[in-house]
């Protein structure tokens, strides 16, 4: 491709200016010398043409070094250089051959995401139950009690680390234990001396000493707990 010279550019500029004047005034450069007085369009075109041909001042030769001197000494902040660099558009070429591995990776990624996107809650629950334990909330309403523990086959009837906390507003004692699936017997130890049954429990069983215990069945987090 032929490289344009400064003269070409100036000629182009002249043509553009002629064209602008012709469009704005409705006359062509050929009309310049042969108009009639009173023809407004021609007069305006002549003026436009005159503006274009008006001589101007050549800038002093020291102007360029006086501008570039300080600029070349200026240290541009890193953020401006980064911002400037980021503003430069860049071209990327993609051929089918280079596209294939990328497309393949995209398919694998999308498939993986789709396969793992469903049942988020269940997955969370499964993660929580890693180790085969599920949370079981024991609750016992007795506002007048000073302390309540849950004792049972899951803690060898000792009640250690199973002290319940009272909800002052409701007067209910609560504790959450993580238990494996299975069958458990339990009861509440009130003020460290009285053993009382859970009135909300569905099952009871005699303990062989003339008393009864509550029975609890823990399933596999699939709503088989009772």
């Amino acid at each position: 491709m032929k490289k344009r010279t400064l003269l070409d550019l100036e000629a182009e500029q002249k043509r553009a200016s002629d064209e602008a004047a012709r469009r704005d005034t409705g006359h062509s450069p050929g009309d310049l010398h042969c108009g009639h007085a009173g023809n407004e369009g021609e007069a305006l075109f002549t003026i436009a043409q005159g503006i274009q041909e008006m001589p101007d001042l050549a800038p002093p030769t020291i102007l360029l070094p006086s501008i570039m001197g300080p600029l070349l000494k200026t240290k541009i902040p890193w953020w401006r250089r980064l911002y400037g660099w980021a503003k430069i558009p860049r071209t990327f070429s993609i051929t089918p051959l280079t596209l294939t591995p990328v497309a393949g990776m995209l398919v694998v990624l999308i498939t993986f995401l789709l396969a793992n996107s469903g049942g988020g809650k269940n997955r969370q629950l499964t993660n929580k139950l890693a180790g085969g334990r599920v949370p079981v909330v024991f609750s016992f309403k007795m506002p007048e009690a000073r302390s309540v523990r849950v004792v049972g086959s899951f803690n060898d009837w000792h009640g250690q680390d199973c002290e319940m906390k009272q909800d002052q507003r409701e007067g209910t004692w609560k504790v959450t234990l993580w238990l494996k699936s299975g069958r458990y017997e339990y009861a509440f130890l009130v003020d460290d001396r009285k053993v009382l049954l859970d009135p909300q429990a569905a099952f009871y069983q005699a303990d062989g000493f003339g008393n009864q215990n509550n029975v609890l069945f823990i399933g596999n987090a699939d709503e088989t707990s009772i």
Partner: protein
Amino acid sequence: MNHPDDQEVIFAVLGGDVNAYSTLVERYQRPIYNLMYRMTRSYSDSMDLAQETFIKAFEQLHRFHVEKRFFPWLYTIGLNHSKNFLRQSKVSRTLSVEDYDAFSGLEYPGQEEELLCARLDLRKLREALDQLSVDYREALILRYRESLTMEEIAEALKLSLSGAKMRVHRGLKMLREILEADHHEKENFA
């Protein structure tokens, strides 16, 4: 007043090549210097203002929209800068014939022909141009001297497109009226 590789030069400058900016300075120093001279009528002020305009443009280059043309953007900076300078120095200069003596080394067509039937006396045209307000004068310069499109003039002078068209057309008519009045005045004296 447009160079197709302005954008490439700007990308080079933005990429950290400060020296590339000299291409833009060389390219546009003439119209900017002349703008400053039209505004101030002082060589030293024109020099300072042109220098400051280019430095300001360099500092703001990261804000320039690279898809647009550089010259109208630069021109806006220069015009605003010179207006601020005049406002601050409260300089109000009017043109006198003597001011043109500075141009004595330049070529003027010496013909004194009929205004509307022949080529214009460029010296008179310059005098008439300087009687216009800055807004009208610069609109005409941008249109016919720097060959900017109406859209670019609108952008450079912060006008709507129709406002820019009106500014150019009215400017031309005002210029014609000034030239005609001058012509009739001379006829009456003769």
